[in-house]
């Protein structure tokens, strides 16, 4: 096992796939010569050359559109949208073109592409460079939505996304790029659509994603030590496909559910989980389902305010106490 940072795991996954499949290309703004503004693609231009690792103009529609054109004609493009906020600039390509291509053509056209993007807040970038928008993508039929929490999952899930025959939006959390973790040596590929139970406890089930996973885990440890509350923590890892089986199994065991999202409140993915649990295991519940989210606000820039609105370990722990009480 090697220790890699989350950002190193991005490059490791892409390199692993580019070595085995010459149809994999990487492109985006500043991804080649500069190695990415978050240095997540460092070294790839040097290893794979300028025909496969390409710097693009600030043209999000052209970047994502070109990915679709390349994917539908036999390649496996991996493109980067530098900040997930900028997906709004090319949302037409994602929603109207990529997501609908296979269905509208009754299966004639495949779009095996990956859009990688830096998502999420906590780094004082302000309202246009900090959003968590994975729930936007979840609302669109035809795209898969993945958001890893650890370096090992970055490598395994990004490799899986590149091999997947369908389009995948891969949300890297910019607040996690510096986090180190063990990553399996050699080829590492996970399966999309499988949640991971990262802590087991009998009192309450917490479902989290991306940067909320380590916070939910820390909250669970705090509750274990201070309150004697034992929580199961599920890292959802992927919103589409959604591993409802794992969530339902653990909610049935604990009788309580708390979802922890970085999205603003309305139509966050936690609402969908809550709806499924309410429909399918209502009589197993011992308490109302609770959602922890960012308030329904744009993210403020300054640290004091940003930390106040994004769910913290303490706010998560407080809500779990309510759920478990």
């Amino acid at each position, binding site marked *: 096992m090697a220790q890699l940072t989350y950002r190193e795991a991005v490059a490791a996954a892409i390199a692993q796939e580019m070595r085995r499949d010459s149809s994999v*290309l990487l492109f985006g703004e500043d991804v080649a010569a500069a190695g990415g503004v978050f240095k997540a693609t460092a070294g790839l231009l040097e290893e794979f050359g300028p*025909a496969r690792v*390409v710097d*693009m*103009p600030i*043209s999000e*529609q*052209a*970047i*994502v*559109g*070109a*990915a*679709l*054109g*390349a*994917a*539908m*004609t*036999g*390649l496996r*493009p991996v493109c980067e949208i530098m900040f997930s906020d900028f997906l709004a600039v090319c949302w*037409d*390509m994602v929603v*109207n*073109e990529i997501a609908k*291509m*296979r*269905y*509208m*053509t*009754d*299966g*004639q*056209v*495949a779009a*095996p592409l990956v859009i990688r993007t830096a998502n999420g807040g906590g780094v004082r970038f302000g309202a246009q460079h900090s959003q968590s928008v994975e729930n936007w993508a979840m609302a669109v*039929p*035809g795209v898969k939505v993945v958001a890893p929490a650890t370096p090992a999952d970055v490598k395994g899930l990004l490799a899986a996304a590149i091999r997947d*025959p*369908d389009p995948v939006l891969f949300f890297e959390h910019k607040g996690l790029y510096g986090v180190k973790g063990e990553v399996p040596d050699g080829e590492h590929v996970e399966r999309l*659509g499988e949640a991971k139970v990262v802590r087991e406890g009998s009192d309450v089930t917490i479902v989290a994603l991306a940067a909320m996973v380590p916070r939910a885990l820390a909250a669970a440890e705090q509750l274990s030590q201070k309150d004697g509350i034992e929580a199961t923590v599920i890292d959802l890892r992927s919103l*589409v*496909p*959604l*591993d*409802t*089986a794992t969530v339902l199994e653990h909610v049935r065991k604990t009788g309580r559910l708390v979802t922890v999202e970085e999205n603003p409140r309305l139509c966050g993915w936690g609402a969908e989980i809550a709806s*499924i649990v309410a429909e399918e295991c209502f009589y197993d519940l011992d308490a109302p389902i609770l959602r922890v989210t960012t308030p329904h606000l744009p993210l403020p820039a300054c640290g004091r305010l940003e930390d106040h609105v994004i769910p913290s370990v303490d706010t998560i722990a407080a809500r779990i106490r309510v759920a478990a009480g």
Partner: protein
Amino acid sequence: MAVTATSPRSGDGDSTLEIDKQTRLQIYRLMLDCRNLEKRAHDLFLQNLIKGTCHLATGQEAVAAGFGAAMRPDDYTFCTYRGHHHTAVRGVSLTAILGELMGRECGLLRGKGGSMHLTSVEHGVMGSYAIIGAHLPIAAGAAWSAKYRGTQQVAVCFFGDGTTNIGAFHEALNMAVVMKLPVVFVCENNLYMEYTPIGKVTAVARPAADRAGAYGLEPIVIDGNDADEVYLTALRALARARNGEGPSLIEAVTYRHGGHSRADPAKYRPPEEVEYWLSRDPIPAYRRRLLESGITEAVCLGIEEASRRAVDVATEEAKASPEPSLESADKQLWFDGGSAWRN
């Protein structure tokens, strides 16, 4: 009149003589098929057998036919929601096209796409796109793919004059030039963006050609109603792309005989303008040229009859086809053929 704002440039001298007889007969047949297909689509719409909307390109047949005759079978076509012609000229079954317009099982997309999304990958028709401008970057991506794979394929991307004012047009041109991609961008300037004269909402007189210089491209304006000129221009642009010399941007000036869509009676057009362009209908003009070049009346009549019959047969086949099964509605979202989003 808007027509004077553009001055169609003829081909390189009298190069029409270079086109062989078989090719010209092919172009004539393609134009007739396009015209007859859309006349039939119009009738079927009035009979309520085609629902929703239908964007006809009657009068613009020379552009699609000229390119259809010039393209290699494995080249890619990307077109708009006004894409019946561009699809038909690649050899796609007329039954499958009319079946799709009518929402039948025999339709190209078995009813899932409809008039605005005709696609036939086996014929190189990589889709008809109903969001203005979106397909220009996609075509550039397909061209990049062809270049990377070394296949010498070219992507040809058709769009209207209105597209020249949307961002994706500019993003795609810039990228295609920077990457020297084998793509041919074809602006069919029919003088109107939907209901509005293009000149009223565009900063330059020639909506595509006057932007070419911004991307280091030669401004090319041709008579889009002259199928031979289109064909020869297409050959040059395709050869340039195949030779690794990069993209072209062609503005083909033409005219839409009808309105923007089924909902539009096109009352906003001056009668004398309509009359002028009807007198420049590309199909009778091409027929006169065929006769002048020594092709007999009998040959022309034979082609015309064959085209009419082909559309009649396709109409009957499409009418006889059932509607798609309800079970098909949740198929083909994903590569595995299904649409599951959870376990």
